[in-house]
């Protein structure tokens, strides 16, 4: 069994929380005591309010909106699912980016009565920017448009027209009613024209690939394990999680950013040594030579080195109340590395609903733009489009310690 991590995006009242509630309810993943608790809380239009399953905070229940991501879990015999239920409000875009950063798939909800709206554009842009491999556009509330195939096809056409300019690899469409459960877990009898799978059937069957286009081996070092006991007197294991590709005993290794070279002597796990380790395994690697390797360094297979530079270009999503202005200094965290950095320039801000590039001098909360960054020390990285695990970073404000930006390297 494997894991599919997905995010649900859409505007307020498009029915995200209801859809998740429906997925859980119809796949029998809700427990009796949870059900009793939401039944006690009252009904909406004569039905239990499934949205209450995900809105876990008092303020959310009071206001009837989602403020922060809720993670929900369910499994079928085929797959384990992790759902990031992200808020739809523009003001919580940063929380949507948080949920999207770990997702393999995005469900974008559209209200069948409204069609593609500004939030659809915004969310699709973020999904494209974060390179979520699969997009499922769920056209919801079909019950309110008489289950019309024509409405469905029109919205599909409208979406595809706009998505032309986006970098979305795989887009699927589904007509659903989350409130009634049409085509969510079970196929709808009200839409006989729909001959494809239900949403759950689709989520169960979609084939997952990760980083398949660029399996260059990448191993950022987290810690050095040095027991210094009699039994393990000379033991020196580099602990970390393989970000992409695989490593095999005997591979020639280059350490970045230093450029020092060695070979893999052993790959250790608690259960014993292994010959080959794959992403995303957490292991400890031992090298043949005693060279200087510490946290933040990256082991790569020689001949497949990434870029190493102090000058970076990136898209960033600004996540702090205090606006970003060029010249400001931050701590840049990329893989296990933390390095001081300053933003040299803001090349443009993207209008996420139209994709327009606008000249601007600063980036405010939830705005996305392209920047150039200078780091205090060289950083080894891959373009985000090739390897998410080495092409992503965050910026931390050293005064407040807040995470103020998410970045994707070019």
């Amino acid at each position, binding site marked *: *069994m*494997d*894991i599919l991590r997905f995010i649900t995006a859409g505007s307020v009242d498009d029915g995200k929380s209801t859809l998740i509630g429906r997925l859980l309810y119809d796949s029998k993943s809700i*427990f*009796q*005591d949870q059900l009793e608790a939401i039944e006690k809380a009252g009904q909406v239009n004569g039905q239990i309010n499934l949205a209450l*399953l995900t*809105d*876990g*905070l*008092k*303020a959310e*229940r009071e206001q009837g909106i989602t403020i*922060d*991501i*809720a*993670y*929900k*879990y369910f*499994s079928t015999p085929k797959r*384990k699912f992790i759902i990031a239920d992200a808020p739809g409000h523009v003001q919580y875009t940063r929380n949507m*980016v*948080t949920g999207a*950063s*770990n997702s393999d798939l995005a469900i974008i909800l559209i209200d069948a009565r409204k069609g593609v709206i500004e939030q659809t554009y915004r969310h699709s842009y973020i999904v494209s920017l974060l390179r979520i491999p699969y997009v499922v556009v769920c056209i919801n509330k079909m019950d309110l448009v008489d289950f019309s195939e024509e409405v469905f096809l029109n919205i599909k056409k409208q979406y595809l027209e706009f998505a032309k300019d986006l970098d979305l690899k795989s887009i699927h469409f589904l007509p659903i009613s989350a409130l009634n459960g049409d085509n969510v877990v079970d196929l709808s009898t009200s839409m006989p024209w729909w001959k494809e799978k239900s949403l759950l059937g689709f989520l169960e069957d979609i084939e*997952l690939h990760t980083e*398949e286009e660029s399996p260059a081996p990448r191993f950022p070092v*987290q*810690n050095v*394990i040095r*027991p210094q*006991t009699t*039994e*393990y007197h000379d*033991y020196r*294991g580099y*602990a*970390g*999680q393989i970000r992409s590709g695989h490593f095999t005993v005997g591979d020639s290794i280059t350490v970045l950013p230093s450029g020092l070279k060695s070979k893999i002597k052993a790959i250790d*796990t*608690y259960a014993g040594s292994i010959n*080959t380790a*794959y992403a*995303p*395994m*957490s292991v400890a690697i031992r090298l043949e030579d005693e060279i200087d390797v510490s*946290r933040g360094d990256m082991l790569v297979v020689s001949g497949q080195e990434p870029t190493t530079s102090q000058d970076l270009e990136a898209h960033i999503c600004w*996540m702090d109340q205090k606006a970003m202005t060029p010249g400001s200094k931050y701590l840049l*965290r*990329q893989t*296990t590395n933390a390095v001081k950095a300053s933003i040299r320039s803001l090349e443009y801000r993207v209008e996420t609903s139209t994709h327009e590039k606008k000249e601007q001098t600063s980036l405010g909360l939830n705005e996305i733009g392209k920047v150039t960054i200078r780091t205090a020390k060289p950083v080894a990285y891959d373009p985000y489009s090739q390897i*998410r*695990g080495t092409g*992503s*970073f*965050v910026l931390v404000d050293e005064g407040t*310690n*807040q*995470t103020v930006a*998410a970045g994707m390297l070019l």
Partner: protein
Amino acid sequence: MTDLHRLSHLDQLESEAIYILREVAAQFERPALLFSGGKDSICLVHLALKAFRPGKFPFPLVHIDTGHNFDEALKFRDDLAERTGEKLVVRFVQDSIDQGKAVEEKGKFPSRNAIQAVTLLDTIAEFKFDACIGGARRDEEKARAKERIFSVRDEFGSWDPKLQRPELWNIYNGKIHVGENVRVFPISNWTELDVWEYIRKENIELPSLYFSHQREIVWREDLVFPVSKFISLDNTDKVETRTVRFRTVGDMTCTAAVESEANTIDDIIREIQVSRTTERGSRLDDKRSEAAMEDRKKGGYF
């Protein structure tokens, strides 16, 4: 050889948890692993073995002993510390009560669950812990479903759900000001069933409480409660002997048992797969109000 080597869901979850534990070791100066003797924290210890052996753990195991624990859990705790050779720190809620810092609840179902936070915060201050690793899972409860893996608490140990840091990819930001601490949840993404399947796969030892046994019980609000010196019985309580096991282990005053014949891990997994109630359905502390957990967390509870 193909690069599309897929790890099973348990291997993926394990790898993620090891990565998180190692991030704690790297980013904090004085971390601690909060150990309760329950199955989730036992899994954490097993994951720490995987993350740091052949080295020692870069943190002690810390138990906040409410004084209402099951004997089986305490014995297991001490045995585990001895078996792993890792440092165990125990601090007592009774001491906080004696010092007048915590006030014992009154009534028919008094619980020390909430005042545990007082002792925990004092312990954090005593050792200047900057990170506390815990075995909480997001599937347990709806407020926990909202929490980040690195969850920053202010100097009062309080969680503000509206001011959580964005948490992107697997880059964790553990930077804090003096006095603040981070609660770290490496098994956030595990479900109860994942934990049990992992225990089976890794052959992890557990306290006998989790397996079916005979015990004296009373019924409380439709729940099966263990008879112990910590609960007060009156004329209305009828003590019976039943075959039970515990699905979750907390204090004897707030953990209900389930009637069960499940004697092996396989039996337990089968039982959970068909269960229609959540694990926390047997915890009275969560049933107090709609926002019981959220309120406790704002008060410094785990």
